[in-house]
């Protein structure tokens, strides 16, 4: 099995790249989720001006490829004088971009609760904050969890784009090995396998959650 010798030799390097990919996705998913929930709440409860601001934000984020945003942040950030390490710059773009998609997921979760839930909470004399806290959020988050996990899969896949702006993670690691060994097929196949392991595990978890949502709790 000489064909796969480059892959066997480089597997530790690839694994370290995969670790970096997970680290990057993990660092981005937290702010993305928080911003996503905030955006969803603003879009549902905000004043008209706030609502249209959110809609404009979603329009821009959903209409422009992530690669364009990443590339231009890479070029523009030094011009604005903000001194941010490349890793955090990329994490910022990833989370701002995914916040737009997260907000849709959470908004759908909140809006898909039957009106009766709101009425019941209100008839018990609950203020909005309490109502959200103990009636709406627990149910909406459960409904939103399967698509949320799917978005996390997409986020992991999207981190491969940061290699184009020169950050080191799994895709970059595999490109480096390919440049050394000239064995693109084996190495990229190995990288694809690693991505598959990470994403498929998460996707399976999402499917498990979905089944739980569908068949009662």
């Amino acid at each position, binding site marked *: 099995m000489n064909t796969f010798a480059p892959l066997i030799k480089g597997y530790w390097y690839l694994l370290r790249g995969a670790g970096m990919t997970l680290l990057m996705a993990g660092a981005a998913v937290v702010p993305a989720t928080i911003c996503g929930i905030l955006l969803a709440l603003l879009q549902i409860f905000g004043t008209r001006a706030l609502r249209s601001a959110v809609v404009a934000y979603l329009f821009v984020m959903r209409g422009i490829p992530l690669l364009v945003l990443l590339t231009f942040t890479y070029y523009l950030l030094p011009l604005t004088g903000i001194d941010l390490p490349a890793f955090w710059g990329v994490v910022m773009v990833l989370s701002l971009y995914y916040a737009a998609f997260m907000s849709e997921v959470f908004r759908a979760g909140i809006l898909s609760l039957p009106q009766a839930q709101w009425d019941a909470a209100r008839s018990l004399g609950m203020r909005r904050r309490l109502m959200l806290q103990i009636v709406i959020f627990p149910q909406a988050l459960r409904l939103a969890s399967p698509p949320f996990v799917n978005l996390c899969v997409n986020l992991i896949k999207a981190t491969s784009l940061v290699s184009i702006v020169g950050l080191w993670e799994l895709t970059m690691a595999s490109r480096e090995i390919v440049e050394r060994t000239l064995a693109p097929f084996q190495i990229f*196949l190995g990288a694809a396998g690693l991505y598959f392991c990470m994403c498929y595990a998460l996707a399976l978890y999402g499917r498990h959650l979905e089944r739980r949502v569908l068949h009662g709790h």
Partner: protein
Amino acid sequence: MPFDPRFIARLIPALLEGAEVTVELSLLTMAICLVGGLPVALARSVRGPLAWLAGGYIQLVRNTPLLIQMYLVYFGLSMAGIPLSGFASGLLALCLQNCGYVAEIYRGGLQSVSLRQFEAGKALGMRRWTLYTTVILPQVVARVIPPLTNQAISIIKDTAQVAAIAVMDVMKVAQIWVESSANTYDVFLGVAIIYLCLTSLASLAGKLFERRLAFAQ
């Protein structure tokens, strides 16, 4: 100097030339996936090894990044003695990935039609062909239009990644112009506007179709 009119006058034709490649790639991918998703979805819904194969294919392409698939096709196949141009490998990777997504959309649409619709059709003595063409498929088509529109938008955005394998799409043209002119703001604005126009057009077309087919809901 940002917003120099003479620079913009030279920039716009170049970007539009790149946009042409982006549009070509997107339209070709959409057309191929609309057709190609169908056999995959059908294979997935019968029992037996075919369903297993189709399911494996869908999971594989959905859980690995498009960029890695492009590298695999572009560098991997040329190493294996099948050199494809950047455009062809980009198209192949885009189709491979999105066929998986479109097939799942078709399957979801078919599953969302209530079993009673089938039973009612049979009770009326309809033949299988009549049942499918007059009762089931119109409902499926109406239901898959919104997710297909989303997929079309994501295809348009995904085409930006072909810039990584040296296809002169609008993204690559923009990269070259930024690097040669350092006029980042103008180029970024131009690219953003082009992508926003393309994705808005796609979502507008989806809305029109949806309204056209509203009778089937």
